[in-house]
C-alpha cells in the first residue's frame, strides 16, 4: 500500500481528489455519514476507505517532508509533481477543514427544546403504530354485538392509545445501542440524544398509569387487565426475547392480537368467541407482515444480534408466512359461524385473502427481496381493507336477536 502510494503519485492524487470529493459530499449531507461504511456502494468501500485513509496519511507525511526539498530542482517534471502535490495538499487541507467544520456542526447541545417536544414524544411513542393499534381496538369495539356507546368507545380508544405510547417508549428506552446500529431505527429520539432516558421513562409512566386507570375504571377491569398485560408482554417479554430466541415473533403476534380483543371486551365486558376470532385474525396477519419485512433486514439483524426467523431459519420464515396467509381465509370463513358477520364476509374478503396468499406463495417459492417487499406492502393495505369489509358485513343486532328468539 505504502509502496504503491510512493510509486504512483499522479494516480494517487486523482484518486485522492475523487475520494475527498466523495468524502466531502458524504459529510455535508447528515444522514450518509451515520453508517459504518461510506455510501453509495456499501460492500466495496469499507476496505477501500481504510486503504484511502492510510494513503492519505502517508501522502500527508510525504508532502510535508518532500516539498521543502524539491523547489530548488530545475527539472520540469519535478516542478509539475511539486505543483500537483501542493495542490493535492491544499485540496486535502481544505477538504479536511470543511469536513471538520461540517462535523462540528453535527454536534448538538443536549438541551430539551420545548418547541420540539411534541414531535420528539410522537416519535418516541411511535405515533403512527399507536394510531394503527387504536384503530384495531376500535374495530374490535365496533364489531361487538352490542349497541354502540360513544363514551365507552372514546375512553377505550384513549386508554389503548396511552398504553401503546407507554409500551413503545419503554421499547425504545431498552433498545438504544441496537437502534443506533440499524438503518431503520437510527433516527429515533433516544439514539439522537433529543431526550434523556429519564424523561423517556417518565413519559412512559405518565402514559401507562392514566391509560390503564382509564381502561380499568372508565371501561371495565377486564380491558384494563388486558392493557396492562399487553404492556408487560411487549416490554418485558417481546423486547428482550428479540435477542434471545426466534419465539419472539409469536409473542409479538400475540401483542398485536390483544388490542382488538380489548376493544371487544370494552364493549361487551366479556371475552367471547368473537373477541378471540378478531384476535386470531390480527395474530395471523402479523406473520406475513413481519416475516416479509424482516426478509430485507437480515444483515442488520445479524450484525445487531437479533434472533429472527429470517436469519436463522429462512425456510421456516417463509413457510409460516404462507401458512398464516391461508389461515386468514379460514378465519374469515369462521366469522359467520360465530355470528360475528354475515356469510357475505367470507365471499367479499376472498379476493384480497387470495391475493395475499398468492403473494405469500410467491415469497415462499422465490425467497427474494422483491417478493418480500410485495408481500409486506400488500399486508399494509390488506388489514384495513379486511377490517372495513368485516364492519360492513357485521351481523346486525336485530338479526342476532331474531335468531336467538327463534331458537327459544
Amino acid at each position, binding site marked *: 500500500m505504502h509502496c504503491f502510494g510512493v510509486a504512483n503519485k499522479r494516480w494517487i492524487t486523482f484518486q485522492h481528489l475523487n475520494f475527498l470529493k466523495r468524502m466531502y459530499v458524504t459529510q455535508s449531507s447528515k444522514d450518509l455519514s451515520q453508517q459504518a461504511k461510506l455510501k453509495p456502494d456499501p460492500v466495496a468501500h469499507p476496505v477501500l476507505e481504510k486503504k484511502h485513509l492510510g494513503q492519505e496519511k502517508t501522502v500527508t507525511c510525504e508532502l510535508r517532508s518532500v516539498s521543502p526539498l524539491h523547489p530548488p530542482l530545475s527539472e520540469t517534471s519535478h516542478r509539475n509533481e511539486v505543483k500537483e502535490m501542493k495542490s493535492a495538499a491544499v485540496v486535502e487541507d481544505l477538504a479536511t477543514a470543511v469536513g471538520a467544520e461540517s462535523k462540528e456542526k453535527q454536534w448538538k447541545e443536549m438541551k430539551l427544546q420545548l418547541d420540539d417536544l411534541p414531535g420528539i414524544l410522537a416519535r418516541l411513542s411511535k405515533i403512527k403504530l399507536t394510531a394503527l393499534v387504536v384503530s384495531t381496538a376500535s374495530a374490535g369495539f365496533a364489531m361487538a354485538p352490542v349497541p354502540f356507546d360513544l363514551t365507552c368507545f372514546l375512553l377505550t380508544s384513549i386508554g389503548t392509545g396511552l398504553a401503546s405510547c407507554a409500551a413503545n417508549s419503554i421499547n425504545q428506552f431498552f433498545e438504544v445501542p441496537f437502534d443506533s446500529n440499524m438503518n431503520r431505527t*437510527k433516527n429515533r429520539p433516544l439514539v439522537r*440524544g433529543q431526550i434523556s432516558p429519564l424523561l423517556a421513562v417518565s413519559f412512559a409512566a405518565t402514559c401507562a398509569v392514566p391509560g390503564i386507570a382509564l381502561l380499568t375504571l372508565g371501561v371495565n377491569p377486564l380491558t384494563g387487565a388486558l392493557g396492562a398485560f399487553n404492556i408487560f408482554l411487549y416490554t418485558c417479554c417481546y423486547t428482550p426475547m428479540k435477542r434471545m430466541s426466534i419465539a419472539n415473533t409469536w409473542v409479538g403476534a400475540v401483542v398485536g392480537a390483544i388490542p382488538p380483543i380489548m376493544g371487544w371486551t370494552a364493549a361487551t365486558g366479556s371475552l367471547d368467541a368473537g373477541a378471540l376470532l378478531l384476535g386470531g385474525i390480527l395474530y395471523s396477519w402479523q406473520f406475513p407482515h413481519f416475516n416479509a419485512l424482516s426478509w430485507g433486514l437480515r444483515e442488520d439483524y445479524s450484525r445487531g*444480534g437479533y434472533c429472527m426467523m429470517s436469519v436463522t431459519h429462512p425456510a421456516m420464515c417463509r413457510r409460516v408466512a404462507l401458512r398464516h396467509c391461508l389461515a386468514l381465509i379460514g378465519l374469515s370463513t369462521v366469522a359467520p359461524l360465530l355470528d360475528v358477520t354475515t356469510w357475505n364476509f367470507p365471499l367479499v374478503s376472498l379476493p384480497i385473502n387470495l391475493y395475499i396468499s398468492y403473494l405469500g406463495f410467491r415469497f415462499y417459492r422465490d425467497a427474494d427481496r422483491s417478493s418480500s417487499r410485495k408481500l409486506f406492502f400488500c399486508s399494509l393495505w390488506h388489514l384495513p381493507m379486511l377490517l372495513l369489509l368485516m364492519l360492513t358485513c357485521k351481523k346486525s343486532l336485530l338479526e342476532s336477536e331474531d335468531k336467538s328468539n327463534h331458537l327459544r
Partner: protein
Amino acid sequence: MAGAAPRVGRWWLGSRRGFSRAGGGAGRLAAEGPVRGHKPESPASSFCPPACSCNDWIGPPDRHSNLRPIIFHIPKNESPLERKLREFRQETQIWNQQFWASQNMSFRKGKEEFISSRLKAKGLDMIDRTGQKVTLNAEEMADFYKDFLSKNFKKHMCYNREWYKRNFITTFLMGQVAFKRVWKKLGWKKMKVGN
C-alpha cells in the same frame, strides 16, 4: 464587553480521545479522567463545546460503532452523586463503544472473508472487469448472517445482560440526581420565604 465569558464548568474530553482511538476497531481504551487541552487526533474529535454552555453535547455517530459520543459537562459545584452518575455514564459509553466497534469490525471482516471464499469457490475474481468489487446477493449472504449470529450468541447474551443493568442504573441515578435538585430548589425557596 468586559473580559472573557464566565467559567461555568469543564467538559470531560476523555470521551473524544476514546472515540478517536477506537478508530482501529478493537479499541483498547482506558477510562480517563478529565483531560483538557490535549491535541485531537481526527476532525471528528476536535470539537469543543462553547464555554457558556452548561449542558452535555452529543455528536454525530461514530464511524465504527454507530453510537453517538457524548461530551459530558462538569458543573462547578458537582455533587458526589452527580459525579457518580457522570463517571458511570462515561464508563458505559466507553464500554458500549468498545463492544460495537469490535462487533461491527468483526462483522465486516467476516463478511469480506465469506465473500472472497465464496467467489474463489465459484472461480470468480474479487474485482470484476469494470473495476467494481463483486458482491454476493442477500440470498447468498444468508449463510454468513446465520453463522455470525450463532457464533456470537453467547457474547450477545452477556452484552444484553450488562446493557440492561447499566441502562437501569444510569436512569435510576438520573432520577436520584433530578430528585435531589428539585429538593434543593424547594429547600432554597423555603429559606427565602423564611427570611
